[in-house]
């Protein structure tokens, strides 16, 4: 019987791993979230999040929403090339730290928020 090269096993396992990554990526990205309507309500009420890509609290805030974050109105405050320098848009908006939430009345809450806090701040039902 012809001996099978270990490469055959490696190619097969590698293909399975890549397929797994793709399936996981598609499933994770497209799965609906139970916060979809809440996030849509925040955007409808003109509630906006200001953050920076390097800010860990902003990542935590995004993770709280899960896939529903795609419905959030988000402003990136890090200046390209000088990530710690705030963009003019964010400065004008009165952002002092990340993340910051601002509503249409101009009210601001700073720091990582629970969804309950955001519901209270916006009047949206969680």
């Amino acid at each position, binding site marked *: 019987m012809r001996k099978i090269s270990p490469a055959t096993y490696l190619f097969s396992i590698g293909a399975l791993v890549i397929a797994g990554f793709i399936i*996981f*990526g598609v499933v994770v990205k497209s799965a609906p979230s139970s916060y979809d309507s809440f996030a849509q309500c925040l955007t409808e009420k003109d509630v906006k999040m200001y953050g920076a890509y390097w800010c860990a609290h902003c990542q935590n805030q995004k993770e709280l929403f899960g896939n529903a974050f795609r419905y959030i109105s988000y402003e990136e405050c890090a200046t390209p090339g000088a990530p710690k320098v705030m963009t003019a848009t964010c400065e004008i908006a009165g952002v002092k730290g990340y993340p910051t939430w601002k509503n249409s009345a101009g009210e601001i809450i700073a720091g990582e928020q629970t969804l309950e806090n955001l519901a209270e701040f916006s009047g949206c039902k969680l």
Partner: protein
Amino acid sequence: MIYFNNKRVATVLFLLSLIGIAISIYSVAHFFGITSGSICNINEVLNCDLVNKSVYAKIGGIPVSIVGLIGYLFLAIASYLKWKEKEIDRGLTQFLLTAIVIGFFFSLYLTGVEAFILKAFCPTCLISQVTTLLMTIFIVMLYVRERHL
């Protein structure tokens, strides 16, 4: 003589894979907050936090460092098997070449993100990128030499 050279290249590849595995484990730990990453936050340009905690640190919901770790594990296993081979196994070399080509372009994409979008580099990522580049050179050398046997 040729076989001896193959073994030597496989040894170098295995050692480079181990460096890649170590760097990836550190990056995974940093991503999940197990380690602070302070030793690689040198300034605003060389900064692990800026890169490894950014939105680009995940691809399809999977941390890039985990993708790297799995890639290096495959390369380490294939290099080890290459080192152990009694007669030349071209299949293993083809696997190494396929894996490193994927790794090389993935690394190129990440370098592009660091250079043109984030405008910041993480030292551990740079070590990993150099490791990938060196492995690409050695594997291509191995592949070309075996083709001429």
